[in-house]
């Protein structure tokens, strides 16, 4: 049987569906062919390569999830700072450096830094601005001043917006000038860094709905899928549209049922706006949708039933670990423990060279696959700062979850930063799909360090990156 499917969406003219207009066979043929195309693009079945991966431009709406939503609550006050641009001194301070995984299809960022200012720290003295650096080239993509918004209760938000950015790993550096804040006694009072939000510049539509409400009493007309099917879809042969062949109720009913199944599959709501689902995520045992589904009957990029379903980029977690100076210096003096500079919030450094867990985070993972083995899409990026004479490439970093471990990654110097900025990507991290988990990063070095603070961890991010 040659299956009727359109290679591109044809649509149906408004004139062909007007009242008193005959219903031509070509109209039904076009609609059934379009529906088959929608099914194939949603599932990746029947050799369809133009699948939905949420990269925009007709490949699915970008997901638009925020990248950073971090509560920090640390003081930026400087204790007896040393000379300008020295370790533990004053100067241009990157108050919260971030490495983010910019997803394909998005090109904007809104950077919001919430601070409780004190002393002589004002927007005029601090002169806040933000830089975007591309990881692969070290190029500065943009550099913009930040405006101050009074949020009340002593909270100030510094914010700016970027556009025209590229996908991949980007470094986001919100920066203030600590030299211009007048010092008093031994402390330069700046204030507290409360939280940072980095998101895309999007609108907001309030409670948009589609179609009928769930109170409409209509028959659903959705066929229950077979045991190995994701959703019901009836294929119609092209031979059924031969010249002068009648359009029968079988075609129309099939078309209708295919659309209803797709509606529930794509929207995630009960088909035809009814009160109950026909589809369930279910592995045949236990309560529906409460177990890690072996068969996902919703468009969720799980690849549990459709092996060629599109895979998506999804941010999981992104944190800054502490402040860093823009000239590649530490915000504290290199002592253990430090006594000068930004003592409450500075990029920390690993002390032993043996395998050491550095950070833990509580997370939950979506139902993506594969979740184990050598080809998961879960990756971690780690941004590192160092003294220019440090041998950071002798370190190796790995990420672990309760499920397993990722590949080892070695830091590589970022171009144009005189050996003071390094990046490492950890790939193929194993995880438990559809479950809460925790993630850790650990570091180890071959041989002894070159000195205190050979490397400082500035930021980490965890994301699915197909």
């Amino acid at each position, binding site marked *: 049987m040659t299956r009727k499917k359109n290679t591109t969406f044809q*649509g149906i003219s408004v004139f062909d569906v*007007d009242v008193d207009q005959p219903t031509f066979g070509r109209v039904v043929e076009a609609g059934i062919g*379009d529906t088959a195309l929608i099914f194939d693009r949603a599932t990746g079945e029947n050799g369809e390569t133009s699948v939905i991966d949420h990269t925009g431009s007709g490949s699915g*709406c970008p997901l638009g999830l925020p990248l950073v939503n971090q509560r*920090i609550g640390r003081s930026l006050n400087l204790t007896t700072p040393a000379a300008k641009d020295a370790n533990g001194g004053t100067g241009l301070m990157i108050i919260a450096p971030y490495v983010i995984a910019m997803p394909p299809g998005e090109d904007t960022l809104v950077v919001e830094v919430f601070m409780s200012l004190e002393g002589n720290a004002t927007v005029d003295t601090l002169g806040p601005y933000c830089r975007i650096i591309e990881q692969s080239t070290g190029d500065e993509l943009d550099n913009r001043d930040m405006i101050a918004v009074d949020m009340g209760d002593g909270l100030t938000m510094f914010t700016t917006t970027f556009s025209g950015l590229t996908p991949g790993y980007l470094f986001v550096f919100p920066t203030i000038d600590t030299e211009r804040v007048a010092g008093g006694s031994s402390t330069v009072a700046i204030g507290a860094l409360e939280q940072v939000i980095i998101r895309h510049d999007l609108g907001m539509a309030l409670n948009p*709905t*589609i*179609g009928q409400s769930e109170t409409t009493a209509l028959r659903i007309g959705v066929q229950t899928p077979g045991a190995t099917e994701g959703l019901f879809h009836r294929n119609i042969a092209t031979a059924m549209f031969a010249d002068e062949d009648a359009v029968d109720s079988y075609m129309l009913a099939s078309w209708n049922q295919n659309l209803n199944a797709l509606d529930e599959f794509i929207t*995630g709501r009960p088909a035809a706006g009814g009160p109950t689902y026909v589809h369930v995520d279910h592995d045949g045992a236990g309560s529906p949708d409460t177990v890690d589904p072996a068969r996902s009957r919703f468009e969720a990029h799980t690849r549990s039933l459709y092996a060629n379903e599109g895979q998506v980029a999804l941010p999981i977690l992104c944190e800054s670990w502490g402040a860093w100076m823009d000239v590649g210096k530490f915000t504290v003096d290199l002592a253990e423990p430090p006594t000068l500079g930004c003592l409450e919030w500075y990029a920390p450094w690993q002390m032993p060279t043996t395998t050491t867990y550095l950070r833990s985070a*509580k997370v939950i993972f979506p139902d993506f696959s594969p979740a184990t083995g050598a080809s998961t899409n879960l990756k971690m990026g780690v941004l590192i700062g160092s003294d220019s004479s440090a041998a950071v490439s002798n370190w190796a970093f790995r990420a672990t979850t309760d499920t397993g471990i990722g590949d080892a990654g070695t830091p590589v110097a970022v171009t144009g930063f005189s050996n003071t900025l390094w990046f490492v990507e950890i790939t193929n991290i194993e995880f438990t799909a559809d479950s809460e988990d925790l993630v850790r990063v650990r570091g180890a070095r071959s041989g002894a360090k070159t000195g205190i603070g050979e490397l400082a961890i500035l930021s980490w991010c965890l994301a699915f990156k197909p």
Partner: protein
Amino acid sequence: MTQSKAGSYTFLPDSAFVAEAKATADVIQSLAGRTRCEYELLTGASPGADTFATPLNPDARHGHNHRGPPWGSAFLHPVAWCGGKQVTNVDLQGERQVMTVVAGTATNPAVGRLMNWVIWCAPFADLPAPRIAPYRKLYLGGLGYLDSATTTDVAVRVRARDFGEDTAWVEKTWTFTSTTEQVPTAPDGNPFVLVKPGYTCIDLTVSNQTAREVRLTSIALLQVVKRSHV
């Protein structure tokens, strides 16, 4: 060609397809319109040169974006977080816990506070009652450990602050047992908070009436369901 939007999203009863049913115009209009709508919802693109038949999604864009029904099955992922470190001064110079709650007593509990925690929740559409949209209700998850290995319960309370009209506190128990980092058990479920699309300001307290010190190394707000909390 001006593509049909007529009958967009008007579903049809099965009676429209029984033998000898009249092939009225609304049948073909519905099928044509819904085909176009499903294409738009799937791809985020309009198939014709004219305007969209489907409305904007919560991000004011077109197409499904997995923000919960009817905009697609939602993904499970962390929404907001506070991060920390398990042990200071031994393996990492310069890191601290998210919150340390010192020992307290029943009459004088020690309370750790995280106030004015501003989060950004990606916009979402509410569901008809009694269903609750996935992103409307976020659950708290955490990691932590004790200064001595004795089973220890702490009371975790969380609420959203909503333009002066605060939501009610939700209080649950977290139980820690170990001096190494662990996920606490939650015998009566994890605490949750009801958030809005966009900014929500959250308050959180951890109350300790025991003789142990509780050190929290990670706190996160998690999106935990795919289509509805009910």
